């Protein structure tokens, strides 16, 4: 299965709305018992300002907050559930924050050492023969596919992107980005976000797995 080739998994959650970045500080988080006090003490603060906050908690969480965008990001797979708890905790403390939507982004990097398999990633999903007439040895650089309507009927979109990996040490790596975006319109708030995160979290992971499984089958892994 392709899963056995997976090297890195990054999880990003981006919340769109109206935020006050200056309040998102490590001691605010630990004061609400959402992170450990020692983590707050040793947090790496790049900036805390009314327009921008960027901090790193331990080695497992990166937070970037601007007036319209709140991003959580981690590449420590064991901490993904903790990230979810933190998101719920923050917005439970800010229930009236206007939120227009959120996206769960799964970015998976796979090592593909077999050159033929690497080529097939592109060729299977965008057959390249038709370009042979006007290009020499055409290769696919990236592919972005979006679902016209979400399968679950919610507002938003589901898309996936396949492109070369920029993280793996060895050159032949493929990054698969699955973006699962839910939109609330202008009526959403912190409580709406919490409800949707709880409902959509596990299905989002299941869908990401489904994508990987499909690619496994298509490329005969």
């Amino acid at each position: 299965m392709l899963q056995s080739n997976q090297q890195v998994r990054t999880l990003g959650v981006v919340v769109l709305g109206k935020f006050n970045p200056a309040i998102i500080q490590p001691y605010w988080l630990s004061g609400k018992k959402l992170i450990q006090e020692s983590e707050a003490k040793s947090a790496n603060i790049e900036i805390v300002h009314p327009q921008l906050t960027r901090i790193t908690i331990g080695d497992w969480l990166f937070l970037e907050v601007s007036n319209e965008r709140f991003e959580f990001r981690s590449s420590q797979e064991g901490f993904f559930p903790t990230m979810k708890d933190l998101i719920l905790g923050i917005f439970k403390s800010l229930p009236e924050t206007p939120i227009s939507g959120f996206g769960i982004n799964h970015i998976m990097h796979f090592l593909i050492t077999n050159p033929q398999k690497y080529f097939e990633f592109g060729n299977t999903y965008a057959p390249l023969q038709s370009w042979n007439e006007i290009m020499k040895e055409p290769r696919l650089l990236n592919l972005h596919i979006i679902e016209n309507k979400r399968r679950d009927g919610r507002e938003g979109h589901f898309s996936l992107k396949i492109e070369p990996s920029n993280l793996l040490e060895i050159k032949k790596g493929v990054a698969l980005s699955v973006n699962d975006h839910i939109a609330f319109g202008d009526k959403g708030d912190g409580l709406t976000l919490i409800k949707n995160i709880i409902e959509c979290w596990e299905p989002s992971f299941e869908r990401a797995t489904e994508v990987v499984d499909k690619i496994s089958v298509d490329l005969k892994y």
Partner: protein
Amino acid sequence: MKTANLESGISPQLFEYDSETFNDQQIHTNVKNILVYEVGHRLYEVGHRLKDTRGQYSDFTEVEIPKNPFNINRIGKNSGYDDRNYSTASYSWIGYVTSINKGIIKANLRDVKNNSTIKEEMEFNIQDLDAEDAKMVEIGSVFYWSIGYSFRNGTKRKYSFIRLKRLPSFSDEQINNALEWAKSANDNLNWD
């Protein structure tokens, strides 16, 4: 005076630099310590602080974009976060503590990576917890346990961590939901 907002989805790079200001008589007054961020090729100012004659900085205020900044220095380095330092969880569980006795914690577990319905029980030393978690842990405490491999600066290592689940207190809405359910059951059940 307005400063431009970050364009959504673009990661800014932060800079800090000093700029001299002059009063109306073109006399050098103080040095500004200005924080700006760069988005694409444009600089947007976040704010500045004025340095007085004693070398003390004032509070931050927002200002217009300066036209001729010099001595641009990057602020600190990056945040320290790097996707290339990552870890993969080979196995993950959620568990709850069933007993604590002489520093040994027993717990029941559920394998969440494989979404298993089979329970497991584990035993570990309270010292395996971070100091703060060790102080907080009690019977019924829910925690995550993950074991796997971490990759840092190209080095692969095994890891295991146990971390208590941290959640805020429940909301008024949840309490109201519980109350409504209880009232409905109390009123509508076919009691003896």
